[in-house]
């Protein structure tokens, strides 16, 4: 398994534990974590845990299942950097209640989603006549 994909899965696990911890602290001591905590928890779990896990596993299996090499390794590397730059900015935005920071982080996280989508489209698309 490519080191980058192992990083995706590892980071997913770390975000899963972090997101759970945020919820537990918020339930036990409301107000201890400032900002929009419910939204932060939801996005850490969905963008940080579930989506990063899907990134890591899909980048490994979809090229194999489709019988093609991954369209672009460089796009997948940038996807890792952007996904992990965007989400921390979104978290910082929710902590400080700065909407422009959430928007900036969201745009960066979205660019990672687009890179993944385009990379997979070119990897999975059928080559030659349909079979």
């Amino acid at each position, binding site marked *: *398994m*490519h*080191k980058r994909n*192992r990083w995706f*899965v*590892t980071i997913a*696990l770390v975000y*899963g*534990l972090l997101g*759970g*911890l945020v*919820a*537990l602290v918020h*339930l*036990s001591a409301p107000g201890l974590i400032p900002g929009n905590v419910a939204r932060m928890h939801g996005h850490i*779990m*969905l963008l940080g*845990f*579930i989506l990063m*896990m899907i990134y890591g*596993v899909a980048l*490994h*299996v979809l090229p*194999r299942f489709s019988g093609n*090499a991954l369209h672009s*390794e460089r796009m997948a590397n940038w996807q890792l950097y952007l996904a992990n730059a965007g989400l921390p900015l979104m978290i910082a935005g929710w902590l400080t209640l700065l909407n422009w920071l959430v928007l900036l982080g969201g745009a960066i996280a979205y660019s990672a989603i687009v890179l993944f989508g385009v990379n997979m489209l070119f990897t999975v698309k059928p080559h030659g006549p349909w079979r």
Partner: protein
Amino acid sequence: MKVELLVSEWCASCHQSEKIWREVAEEKDIEFAVLDMGQPEGRALVSRLRLKTIPALVIDGELKGIGVQTFAEARAWVAGASARQKAGMQHAGLALSPDNRLFILGAMVYLMLGGLGLVINGALLSGPARPVALHLVTVGFMLMLVYGLGAHMLPRFTGNPILMGVWPWIQMGLVHAGLLAYSAGFLVGVYPVVIAGGALIWLSLLVFTVRIWPVLWPKPRNNGMAIQVHIQPGA
């Protein structure tokens, strides 16, 4: 000693062969990998050794056997390897293990329970029942699916063993107890029970992380090299 077993999903005798070699791999300190001939790593081996029949057994890069070996034959071939320290680590097989099968079954049950909200009011409920319906889908379905599929697939993708023994069952008990306590606590409005449930769910994720970590990042072996089982361009 590096033992590679070349198999395919559609080959019935391959499952039998893999079962035998997995048991031997639990006894002996060998680097064991199951390679699917439908995947690039398996195809590379087929091409290099010009193999025409599976299951095929390759030891230290040389073709040693074709077909299903008996336990005695398999043990004789790796007699030179030292006995494996009992660490509760196991290599993943082609078929789902009982714990992973139960995780996936549980995920489906929680999905149907959580989705009930859609039938009741066209959304995932409202009021105190909303976080319950949401978490039945996200924790009950998504997390349990990650548990079942992750513990099955990641050891196969990396070729590294996963921590088994009582650990998957502890993880399963924690997530079920946690989700039930979380849901019941919210429905009756007893928040210490909600927090306790959340803590149990979090602990189940911690157990899963501890089990998956050595699958992703194995400890270096005695010769200072990490086990590199799969040959992959760009890896």
